[in-house]
């Protein structure tokens, strides 16, 4: 998958920083609610980014990233609730806890390949909400009642609303994590990760410590998703086992596949896509029923499912992959000489869709 052009990245970041400042001019377009929604998109994007490091760049499948998300959220919540820790300090700690959990889980996972690993992580996703309810942990986790938190307060007396601050907070964290992931992937370790994905045995023969790389990747991936969980605990200001059902893990996987496996930009697109469609699927199904007048009483999930099928049929490499393919096919007949100039050839770490 080609990497995302840097100048566009900078334009996007600048836009993301500037847009909330239009609130006084366009109060309805840049409302607090919408910023909150974008914040949840960024949180989902970080979680998908974590999963992408594991699945997209290291070739290990996980159906259980909802579990790490939950662990991150609960770590943050317990620290804020019991130790009165400021919300921003919980992020590195949640990342640390999740790294350790992920690393430890990665050890036995070494022996499991493909489907078996998917099943093992599936079990993890099912177990974690039950563990959170367990009576020995109840004093800490609040059991089924969960923990009620406060929203992050605006620091330094900045003239922002709570939601605007939350937006910037998530944006800062996402940009940092994106940058870190891009750097990891560009480094020697990143190439090792991808080599393992592409041909495990060959990577082994080349002298890559595959066991170490696989477990550490598992840890890093879990840490990313854990940070997203910790952010969500701050954003929603409430955690409960019901928030981390099995469907959450599937949600990350959908975001990953839709955005583009093995593409950092795709993770962000996937996170945005998921929140957007999840929120508008119901509106779409009532629209089909009431406004178009079709006699279907479609549930929101049916609409969601149909959309997914169509998307995967049209863009089998995810949205980002599809957009690149489109750009390429547009560019090739028009100005073949320009192509090399516009996109300087990189040692493309792409793999064809399989």
């Amino acid at each position, binding site marked *: 998958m080609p990497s995302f052009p840097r100048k566009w990245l900078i334009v996007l970041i600048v836009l993301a920083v500037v847009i909330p400042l239009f609130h006084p001019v366009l109060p309805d377009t840049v409302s607090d*609610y919408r910023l909150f929604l974008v914040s949840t998109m960024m949180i989902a994007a970080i979680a998908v980014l974590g999963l992408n490091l594991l699945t997209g760049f290291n070739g290990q499948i996980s159906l259980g990233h909802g579990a790490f998300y939950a662990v991150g959220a609960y770590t943050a919540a317990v620290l804020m609730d019991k130790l009165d820790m400021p919300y921003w300090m919980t992020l590195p700690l949640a990342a640390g806890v999740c790294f350790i959990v992920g690393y430890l889980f990665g050890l036995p996972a070494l022996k499991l390949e493909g489907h078996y690993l998917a099943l093992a992580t599936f079990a993890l996703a099912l177990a974690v909400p039950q563990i959170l309810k367990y009576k020995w942990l109840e004093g800490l986790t609040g059991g*089924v*009642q969960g923990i009620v938190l406060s929203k992050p307060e605006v620091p330094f007396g900045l003239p922002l609303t709570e939601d605007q601050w939350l937006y910037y907070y998530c944006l800062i964290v996402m940009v940092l994590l994106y940058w870190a992931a891009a750097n990891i992937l560009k480094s020697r370790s990143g190439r090792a990760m991808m080599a393992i994905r592409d041909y495990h045995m060959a990577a082994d023969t080349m002298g890559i410590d595959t066991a170490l790389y696989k477990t550490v990747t598992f840890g890093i991936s879990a840490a990313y998703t854990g940070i997203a969980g910790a952010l969500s605990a701050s954003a*929603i*200001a409430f955690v409960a086992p019901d928030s981390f*059902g099995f469907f959450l893990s599937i949600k990350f996987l959908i975001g990953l596949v839709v955005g583009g496996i093995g593409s950092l930009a795709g993770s962000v697109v996937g996170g945005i896509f998921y929140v957007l469609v999840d929120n508008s699927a119901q509106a779409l199904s009532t629209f089909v029923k009431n406004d178009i007048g079709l006699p279907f009483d479609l549930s*929101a999930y049916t609409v969601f499912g149909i959309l997914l099928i169509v998307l995967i049929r049209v863009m089998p490499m995810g949205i980002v992959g599809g957009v690149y393919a489109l750009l390429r096919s547009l560019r090739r007949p028009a100005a073949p000489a320009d192509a090399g100039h516009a996109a300087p050839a990189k040692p493309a770490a792409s793999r064809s869709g399989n």
Partner: protein
Amino acid sequence: MKKTNRRTFVAGASAAAVLSGSRVAFAQKKYDDGASDTEIKIGHTNPYSGPASSYGVIGKTIAAYWKSVNEAGGINGRKITFISYDDGYQPPKTVEMVRKLVEEDKVLCTFNTLGTPCNTAIHKYMNQKKVPMLFVATGASKWGDPKNFPWTMGYQPDYHTEGVIYAKHLLANVKDPKIAVLMQNDDYGKDYWIGFKEGLGKDADKVVKHVTYETTDPTVDSQIIQLKDSGANVFFNIAIPKFAAQAMRKAGEIGWKPAIYLNNVSSSVATAMKPAGFENVQGVLTAQYLMDPTDKQWDGNPDMKMWVAWMNKSNPGASLQDASNVFAYSVSFLMHKTLEKCGDNLTRENVMRQAANHQKLKVPLCLPGITVSTSPTDYYPIQAVQLARFKGESWELFGDIMHAESS
């Protein structure tokens, strides 16, 4: 001090009359977000999908209720716009959806949002925004707290109080009780259990066995065998209909015959008592506040006749067996009356004031004698229940209506 002569008195009185008159004129039409001359917007969340989607019928029946209200001309000439979103019983989703209702759709109030964790997630937010969060659909006991959360009100008798009632009845009626408890391992089960223990007080050690199950378990057979082996002669059944029925059937099959107390959640004849086998559930005790549509004793009742007629006309396709539809109808009626009382003063403050100002309001489908009363310090609309014993194929009410104050 100067004596008030007649003229100054008249002048003063007429000035007061003018002032109060003008205030009435102002009060005549006052609106907050979500209300206008032509419509009132009400928000709602409900799990139409996901593990708790069996509650989805509540949202559909409420929607049918408002549709029939609109067809009859609305409330004080205003149409009800009822906006209901699916939250899949996931608290983060509830937060998103309720924020959408309040900030984008600009509803006047929310109504009957469902689920204890879901409502917990929006509790603080709604009170910060000062938007009425009325008649929430959960049996937890924390919703009637006007001092800390003046914008939130519950509806049904809470599980905690019900647990206390069973414990008191048991201590008074069962000689030398040895109690076995089956509990669903979640907030609903725990609320009952805590209330029950509180009701037992110093006799809490009479509980000889306490076992739990998860909603994902296939059966509770092994739990019932454990309970029987404990030698208990009282069985407190805190389970949703499917498991409550399994439990009572199994108890009958293995020849365990304790005094059974069944939580109200599973008192439906069609979904719990019949599947358990009528021969296994004779003499079972429960507490009720609503009429069970599958209980034959209500067949001739005017409320029930009216409800059946309404269901057939306005909510076709919905189950006449499902007690959720009775619940949805009765709670919608209370919301209807509350908005009606607001008149033309449709501010959030007034909605809350009127919600906390019902005196002995007769709500259809509540048991005879059970009414809704609220006040600025009493945010529990229904607090009364009546005990019932299962006999033949229906419930037989006995004793007085009990008004239990929640602790």
